[in-house]
């Protein structure tokens, strides 16, 4: 049954598309700007050039920042998905009174403002020499991404019948074999998509990176922050375009994984 297209629904539709334009236009506006020949960021963009992209790829500083962020994000995705999956599995299959503590601590990093954690870690990591190091960034980003891994894995693990592992164990499998051969393959798509999300959160994380970056060790978001703050060069739209493409690829990847998932 289709509702009649009266004036009210038309007005609602118009309003909704205006809001969607407000959401999406500022995001895509950087794409034409990144190909503009203007040396200053005037609108409308004119001509077509790839020089801002080559400026980004040729710059030693931009490359170093990108490479640092890639390493940190890969390690964060690995740490967060392993630690998060282990903890979620224990929470769902285990017996422990720590579950309440687990739930409270889990939402901590979402609730507490990132600026508070950033400042706390800045002080703490300086005293133990982790400031501006890869392990320092990875530890901080793992804490920030763990809640997202746990939410995803909790939804996936809850759908795997506990009797499947029990059956495997009654056929002689150890607990670890039962997990590795029965449960893990079933939740693998969710595990992969939580790793993807951990990667992109870490790769784009600006606040903690801002405070933990040293003079030489700067993540990509920190370099971008400085560029936007100081001179706003036309390299920024080029990098922004690349980052949007990366986000789209990550979301597509997660979508494919979701549609393949047995436990969805």
């Amino acid at each position: 049954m289709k509702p009649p297209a009266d004036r009210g629904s038309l007005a609602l539709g118009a309003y909704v598309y205006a809001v969607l334009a407000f959401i999406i236009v500022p995001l895509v506006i950087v794409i034409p700007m990144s190909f503009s020949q203007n040396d200053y960021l005037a609108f409308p963009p004119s001509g077509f050039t790839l020089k801002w992209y080559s400026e980004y790829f040729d710059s030693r500083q931009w490359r170093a920042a990108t490479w640092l962020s890639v390493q940190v994000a890969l390690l964060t995705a690995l740490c967060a998905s392993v630690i998060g999956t282990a903890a979620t599995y224990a929470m769902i299959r285990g017996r422990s009174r720590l579950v309440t503590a687990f739930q409270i601590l889990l939402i901590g990093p979402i609730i507490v403002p990132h600026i508070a954690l950033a400042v706390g870690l800045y002080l703490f990591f300086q005293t133990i020499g982790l400031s501006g190091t890869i392990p320092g960034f990875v530890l901080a980003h793992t804490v920030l991404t763990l809640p997202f891994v746990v939410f995803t894995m909790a939804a996936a693990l809850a759908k795997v019948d506990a009797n499947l592992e029990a059956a495997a164990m009654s056929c002689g499998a150890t607990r670890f074999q039962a997990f590795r051969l029965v449960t893990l393959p079933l939740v693998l798509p969710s595990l992969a998509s939580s790793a993807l999300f951990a990667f992109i959160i870490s790769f784009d994380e600006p606040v903690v990176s801002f405070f933990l970056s040293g003079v030489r060790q700067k993540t990509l978001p920190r370099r971008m922050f400085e560029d936007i703050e100081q001179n706003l060069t036309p390299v920024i739209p080029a990098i922004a375009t690349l980052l949007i493409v990366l986000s789209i690829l990550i979301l597509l990847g997660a979508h494919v994984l979701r549609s393949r998932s047995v436990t969805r």
Partner: protein
Amino acid sequence: MTEARRSHFWHSDGRRLSGLSTLLLLLPFFAIIAFVFVYPILQLLVISILEPHPTLENYARVVENPVHMRVLMRTLWTATLVTALSVVLGFPVAYYMSRAKGTVAALVAVCVILPLWSSVLVRTAAWSFLFQRNGLINSALMALGLTSQPFKLLYTQSAVVIAMTHVLLPFMILPIYGALRSIPDDYGRAAAVLGATRLRTFLEVILPLSLPGVVSGSLLVFLTALGFFITPALLGSPQEMMISTLVSKQIREVLDWPFAAALVGVLTVFVTLLAIIFSKTLRFDRLMGNAS
């Protein structure tokens, strides 16, 4: 401890892990949260009340200095405004999304979810292009003949409010969408059968049932907005700081750690208290697309 309990600690049965394995699996999680989250925050709170000597002076400086008080008020006001704007802009989108089907639904979902997973810096940079003297907004206003002089948009509090609303809007839309989706279609039909107009059905059935989503989204946006750093730092005026930019200044320029710690203390305690009070309504798992 009973005999059965003790044996559960050491041995697992087919369906349940032993207590020991549970502990071992949870250990890395608790270790990293304790070491990289709880400790650094507690250390700041301790500094705020113990340095230079056991005192509440640092907190007194936050509330007694009119400049700092104005920063707190501006932060509260900005967060309130951003939350209100997000409800007004977000609710109709969530409602439309919950009714849409097929390609339209997918398109709307992409528009809401893609920004959520793209860099805050990208979105903030985009606004600083738009707000520039010769940016799109000023060019458009001048081309339309609405103004002859470009407006000063960048480095104003309005720029901060608009850009923060843009960044936080998905956090409002998704919880409302989740609440709307959980309302069975039959309710609306039942109201229609009983003779209610569509407006009355919306006001008396749909709206009240979607309120938990509105409250949850509002809290999420409000709490995040209070501590927002990147957008005020890049688009705001240095004369109109928010609490996060003031903290950053104290640490990077003034090097006044005890005072910065007290500011962080005020923010963290306030946000945590609000989260505890409303812990029943905050549904974080909705954000991960379980509802979408």
